[in-house]
């Protein structure tokens, strides 16, 4: 009964160590993907600009969206300098409000425009354009447009001095097509570099550039975070292995009388060694598989708590965890057996 108890605790140690290792490995591989999603809140990481302040070709947006293939957002922007009814110049931009809302999450908007003649007015432009929030006129090349101030925009940057209207409204008024497409592409730095190439090929008349401020910041912070998480994971896995090793050593050492009896009855050292190794390997395998399942569950839990998103279970890690478990189990059984071989069975049976 005692022995079953000891075997059970050895199995428990194996399961725990495998679970911890799986959870840690899963996390450190997935944390990059999770954090990248957070970094996309910084907005566009690729910009497509028409050369020489012209407009982009009419099919540019379509082409860009098909190249992206759902791995990101592409938002068009068209700009003119219009005049208010008092003659003051103001930059007006036409864009797709639904897409902009997803791209630029830091935009602080009091309420997004919905109707055709609604405009989003930057906080600094309000005083010049519609100081009391009343409807206002803007004129560009002899054409006037009547707009309602539907909401205000605050960003702390150039957008605060602009008026934003819907792209269709803008084009009807000015006949000017978008000159810029801002792209927020998902993926690693190499994925983004490849995307820049593909977009440049799709729209050869435009300049396609990565936004260095965003890309370099992301690469740096992500790299350091990954290094920290990997170090932490390594430490935790090492500690779990230590725990496992000491438990298994104790388990084998505990049964030295059994092995001594076997040897006294004529079993060769090799037979005993093989027996122990087989036992350890079986324990290692079973424990690793159970531990793997639990580890995946733990990683999923952590993903839910911290990232509010499921952590992708990586079943391709099972061979690693399995192999690791069997190896550690074998090592922790081989050492005591090797030591015990040296001692005469009689000494062990006597109780020393």
């Amino acid at each position, binding site marked *: 009964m005692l022995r079953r108890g000891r075997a059970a605790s050895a199995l428990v*140690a194996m399961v725990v160590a495998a679970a*911890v290792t799986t959870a840690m490995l899963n996390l450190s591989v997935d944390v990059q993907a999770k954090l990248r999603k957070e970094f996309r809140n910084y907005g566009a990481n690729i910009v497509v600009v028409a050369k020489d302040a012209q407009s982009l070709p009419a099919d540019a947006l379509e082409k860009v969206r098909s190249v992206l293939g759902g791995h990101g957002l592409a938002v068009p922007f068209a700009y003119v300098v219009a005049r208010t009814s008092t003659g003051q110049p103001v930059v007006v931009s036409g864009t797709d409000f639904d897409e902009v809302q997803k791209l630029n*999450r830091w935009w602080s908007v009091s309420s997004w425009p919905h109707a055709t003649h609604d405009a989003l007015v930057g906080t600094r432009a309000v005083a010049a354009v519609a100081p009391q929030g009343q409807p206002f006129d803007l004129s560009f090349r002899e054409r006037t447009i009547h707009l309602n101030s539907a909401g205000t925009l605050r960003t702390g940057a150039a957008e605060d001095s602009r008026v934003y209207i819907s792209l269709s409204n803008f084009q009807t008024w000015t006949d000017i097509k978008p000159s810029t497409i801002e792209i927020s592409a998902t993926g690693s730095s190499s994925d983004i570099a490849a995307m820049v190439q593909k977009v440049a090929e799709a729209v050869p008349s435009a300049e396609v550039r990565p936004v260095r401020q965003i890309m370099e910041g992301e690469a740096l912070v992500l790299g*350091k975070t990954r290094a920290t998480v990997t170090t932490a994971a390594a430490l935790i896995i090492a500690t779990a292995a230590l725990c496992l090793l000491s438990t298994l050593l104790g388990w084998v050492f505990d049964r030295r009388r059994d092995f001594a009896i076997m040897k006294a009855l004529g079993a060769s050292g090799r037979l005993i060694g093989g027996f122990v190794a087989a036992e350890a390997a079986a324990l290692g395998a079973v424990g690793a598989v159970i531990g793997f399942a639990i580890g995946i569950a733990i990683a999923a839990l952590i993903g839910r708590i911290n990232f509010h998103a499921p952590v992708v279970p990586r079943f391709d890690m099972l061979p690693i965890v399995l192999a690791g478990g069997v190896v550690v189990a074998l090592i922790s059984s081989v050492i005591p057996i090797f030591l015990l071989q040296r001692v005469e069975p009689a000494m062990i049976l006597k109780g020393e």
Partner: protein
Amino acid sequence: MFARLVYESFRRQRRPKLLAGVAITLGVGVATAMIAVATDIGDKISRELRTYGANILVTPQDDTLDLQIGGVDLKPPSDGAYLDEADLPKIKGMFWRNNIVGFAPMLTVPVSLVGGDVTLLGTYFSRRLTFGKQDFTTGVRNTHPWWKVQGAWPNDESTEILLGERLAGKLGQSAGDQVEIAGHSHRVTGILSTGGAEDDQIVAPLTVAQRILGKPGVVRRVYVSAVTKPEDAFARRDPKTLSGAMYDRWYCSPYAQSIAFQLQEAIPHSHAEQIRQVAQNEGTVLSRIKGLMFLLTIAALLASALAVSAAMATTIFERRTEVGLMKALGAGITTVAALFLAESSLLALGGGILGFVGGSLLARMVGRSIFGSTIAIEPVLFPVILGIAMVVTFAGSALAIRRAVRFDPVYALRGDA
């Protein structure tokens, strides 16, 4: 007598004690390192996030409406108000001066070259300033770290300039050439690559732009890069509505809003505001990373506790024959338990101290290799870690001791394990 038993135990059974001690040291070391890294990671990542550049923009209070498309300023230079360059060093006199990583003033002026009209941007590169007794350097090299120069950065006190790479390509110029601007000859020390509007511009020291504009000592705007605390509901409150203690708390917290508020106080006739694209997202990224490290630390502590318990349980359970013998000789359960607990305490103490030192060194190594700065180890961590080590060792031993004590002495005397 008790003390002698403990001493003899350590002297005669060195190997199992060593193994248990090693397990405790490693467990405590890992726990210490993880706690040290997790508590400091927020500060470290905050500083790394400054790679995104300036998070606060200071503009003249009475400025007219900006006309900017794609980073290019379309407003005529005579239009609008200016800030006084002489007021800028006062930034280092603010309450939160140590959080200011750097600032860079900017002044643009159109110039005509052989090829056409070009914008010239005047700024600080790495300008040395003095405020009171303090000397410091600041400029775009702090606030715009993604600006790369092929060649050398110009001297802030000189008339050397940088050409944006697209402009240099168009003009066919490169580093070392001389360019004639508004009647003066300027040496190009390097080609600037930013990925933005500056690639089409000339970037020069601020004094050059001021001279061309004919307005010495003015700046159009100042970009400030500050280490801030993530925004919460309290940060968004209007300081004018706060009174007394609440106002002090708001003022003395490094929110982007309070630092902007203090910048407005330091620079007369200015308006300072957070650049939301940079400032807002810092908070989310930081909280995700801190949350992750916290969870990992909990996992590490659990793993360490398990490792220490397992090691203690193994070593004590091994000695159950010894326990049986002691009981047969007449020792009470309490005495036996006390003996084992005393041994465990000594192991915990020794292992705990060694583990703490080792863990601190490990944390220092991690800090140096990953972040290039030291990870601060709070001295209060030492008694905490030691206490935890004792508790865990006790818990691990207690269970094993309980089982060992229940063991019938008859089996021990018979030699049956």
